[in-house]
């Protein structure tokens, strides 16, 4: 009887704190996007969906966000693998093992603020270049924030996410017998580079794939960094949604909900994909 009560409580907690907010939030967004609820609702309409895709703003925003996430993730994963393999033991004990955690103490807004002070044309990097004689004035330094290539955003996201992947790969190397597998491959005649590209890296990528997908999902929804360091067009999905919802133009609000629904669907699909891939990885 007591066990059943605790099960009911757990079920209730999940429903109250996870399922209900999800259904309410997504339900509201869906209904608003179809004109069924909202300030200017006139009943069911596809107008808002048509308007959202009338120009390419929404499409570009999604492509931009996905592209940005992929670049940021690729840099974190590749650098993380390199650092874990190259430094490995130095980051597991001593001062290195504490230092690597430091970026995890930064909220996105602080990271964005720092990188603005670091990469803008009046920032620290520009001043260093001036002192080294590489530039002659502040305008000679290319602004690396709010720029065309989103360097500021990538740098800030890289700073925040790298430690997570370094620690992840250190842990995988320790727990998955990567060293033993490498030795085995060597004994079968593989050269160092072959061991690296045919054994070590594929094994690490396979094991970390569900985490990579999960962080891809997180990066899709990132808000503070693109808000501060991004350019005005295209915007990332979250910035676009918030802008549309908070504008005085009420016609933009339903479009904001359209984008929110598409984003939520994308997250569901990716989550299911991540779960399926973690099942495959676990079975391997």
């Amino acid at each position, binding site marked *: 009887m007591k066990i059943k009560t605790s099960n009911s409580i757990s079920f209730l907690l999940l429903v109250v704190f996870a399922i209900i907010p999800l259904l309410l939030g997504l339900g509201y967004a869906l209904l608003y996007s179809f004109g069924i609820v909202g300030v200017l609702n006139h009943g069911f309409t596809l107008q808002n969906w048509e308007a959202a895709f009338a120009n390419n703003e929404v499409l570009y925003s999604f492509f931009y966000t996905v592209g940005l996430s992929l670049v940021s993730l690729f840099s974190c994963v590749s650098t993380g693998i390199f650092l874990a393999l190259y430094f490995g033991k130095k980051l597991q004990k001593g001062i290195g093992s504490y230092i690597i955690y430091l970026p995890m103490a930064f909220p996105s807004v602080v990271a964005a603020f720092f990188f603005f002070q670091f990469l803008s044309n009046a920032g620290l990097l520009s001043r260093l270049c001036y002192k080294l004689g590489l530039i002659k004035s502040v305008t000679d330094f290319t602004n690396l924030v709010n720029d065309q290539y989103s360097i500021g955003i990538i740098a800030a996201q890289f700073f925040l996410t790298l430690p997570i992947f370094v620690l992840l790969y250190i842990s995988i190397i320790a727990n998955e017998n990567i060293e033993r597998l490498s030795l085995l491959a060597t004994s079968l005649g593989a050269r160092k580079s072959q061991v690296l590209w045919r054994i070590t890296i594929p094994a690490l990528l396979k094991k970390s794939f569900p985490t990579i997908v999960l962080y891809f999902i997180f990066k899709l929804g990132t808000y503070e960094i693109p808000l501060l360091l991004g350019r005005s067009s295209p915007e990332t999905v979250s910035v676009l949604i918030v802008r549309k919802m908070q504008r005085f133009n009420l016609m933009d609000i339903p479009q904001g909900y359209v984008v929110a629904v598409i984003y939520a669907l994308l997250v569901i699909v990716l*989550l299911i994909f991540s779960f399926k891939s973690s099942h495959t990885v676990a079975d391997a």
Partner: protein
Amino acid sequence: MHKKRTISLFLLVIYCVLPILVLFALSFSLNWVYPNILPQTFTLRHWKEFLFDGNGLQQSFFNSLTISLFVAFTSTLLGFICSKWIAYHKRRRLLLLVTYFPFALSPVIFAICLKFYFLKAGLAGNLPGIIIAQLIIAFPYATIFFTSFWNKSIKDYSNIASTLGSSPFNSYLKIIFPLAKSFLLTGFFQCFIISWFEYGLTNIIGYGKVQTLTIRVFQFIGEANIFYAALSSCLLILPPVILLWVNKKFVVHQTR
């Protein structure tokens, strides 16, 4: 090779430590004119104002602290309870997937979709509303985190204790909680950090009325007041640095 590795490690240390040094330096500065690398004038003024609440930052700090402690405590407790049920459930994977979803969604987008309900319930623009909104993202995280604690070994320990005559309450007190101590602490720290770092959701649900530290940072950035922004940033970083150090030094060792 050894030299290359040492230089690379040195660069890595710079990469990790430089942002903190820059932010602290700016928080003690009055001006930072181009092209000087270091600020011209150093001052304790900003920190003194914080300590004597001259700029309302102290209130923001305590707002953030109150919210984060409450959210961390509640989500840890509720997440620990709920995670056991999920971990041993037949449909564990499906339940985990459902639990992941609110956590995976961007908090600011989630907040925008829920704003209507918070308004209707009178929870917009106040502390309770923000706490509830943050629980909606912290609780799923805590549940997911603690699910990995409830493995076969824990179940076997509970069963052994039971066959030795221990009541469920005794088993929790003498077996489960001692074994879960480090997990609970780490989970608490992580939920604290999730809440402490939160900006977008807090801004949407709080309507800017509840001034947390993250909101103040944004305000100072908007006002181009980089020195106060740096000060607020330092205040934001300090607790997580301490928590991460405590977690690394004491909690991780316990699990070994």
